[in-house]
Structures are given as C-alpha cells and as structure tokens.
C-alpha cells in the first residue's frame, strides 16, 4: 500500500493566505524530508525534519514521529510559492532510499 500519503492533492490560494500541507506515512521512518519542485522541474530540499518543529522564513515543518505525520505550514503565501511540494521518508531498513509521496500542487494567485 501507499507508504507516504500527502493531502491535499492540490490547493489554490489567494496571495497572503496561509496553507497547511499534510504528510502521513505508514511505515517507520528514520528520516523525513520536505522538497519543493519548481514549475520548471528542479527539486530542492526545504527541510530535513524527522521530529519536532523547524522554521525557515515563512515555512514551518512539524513532525510527530510516533503519530507518523508531518505538516508543512506556509504563511503569507506569495505567487512564487507556486509549485509542487513533496514529502519523502527514508524507511528504517533501507539506507538512503527515499520514498516519496504524490505531492501537493500549490497555486498562489494574485
């Protein structure tokens, strides 16, 4: 079955609104990472966050390991935030093998 599930699948925001993206995973994860994919295709790492809360700029990631969930909060969204956000886990038994969710496609309109 699906090991990493993200919700929502897509989201449209008005510029300035906040967003909360969810990631639930079914297997034990030793690592969890959030990625952002530009509309042009390049994937960049946002957070490595296996547990707890991390902030960078307008982004906050919170992972509750024993509940097997993580969230990515985007505050005061901007049109440049548009793109696809992926959650990925590394399974405890598989060194360096990331398993990706399906992604959340975010569109921020002016």
């Amino acid at each position: 079955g699906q090991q990493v599930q993200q919700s929502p699948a897509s989201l449209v925001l008005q510029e300035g609104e906040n967003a909360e993206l969810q990631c639930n995973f079914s297997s034990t994860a030793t690592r969890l990472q959030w990625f952002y994919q530009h509309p042009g295709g390049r994937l960049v790492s946002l957070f490595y966050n296996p547990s707890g809360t991390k902030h960078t700029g307008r982004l906050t990631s919170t992972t509750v390991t024993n509940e097997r969930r993580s969230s990515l909060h985007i505050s005061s969204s901007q049109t440049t935030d548009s793109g696809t956000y992926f959650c990925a886990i590394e399974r405890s038994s598989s060194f360096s093998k990331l398993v990706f969710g399906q992604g959340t496609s975010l569109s921020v309109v002016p």
Partner: protein
Amino acid sequence: GGIITQTPKFLIGQEGQKLTLKCQQNFNHDTMYWYRQDSGKGLRLIYYSITENDLQKGDLSEGYDASREKKSSFSLTVTSAQKNEMAVFLCASSNWVSSYEQYFGPGTRLTVL
C-alpha cells in the same frame, strides 16, 4: 557549492530504442541516484550507487541499466524504450554521512514516439 547537470535536457526516442541519460555532479558526493517521475506523481527510485563501483537496484529497476563510471558521473540506460515510459528522469547525489540531504539535477524529459 556545487551543481548537478543532466544531459540531455530533452530526449526523444523510438519505441524499442536503447537510450542513455547522463548525470554529473561536482559536490564530490559519494552516493548518486536515478529517479523517475511520471506526470502528477511522486518520484520512484530506479537505481542508486552508494560509492564509486557500487550499483544498487531501486524499486523500479526493471527495463533499466545503470553505470557509475567514476565518482562524479552516473548514467542510466533505458534498455528498450516503451511508450509508457514518457516521464522525467531526475538524478540526485548525497554525502555518505548525511545521505538524507539529496541534491537534485534539473531532469531529463523523455518522449517515446
């Protein structure tokens, strides 16, 4: 800083053709990866190489071969292109110690006619 380059950016092939995608990184990373991304989907791991001269199959290795020619380069070969293989192929690399921090290339978009 460093960079990962992938060539070609766009690859068009015929069904049944053998096609090769190339990836170079100058991070001096030990580990390199090939992922496939289908439209609207997440990434799936095809092959990875933990160190030079190593090769490991991912979840989607059937129909592909890979080669780690040297530490900085990792190639992927589609052994017989099929129409349902139209996808973007992403290369990544990471340090042995901090393998979670994977850096990605811009991708190669494959179209099979």
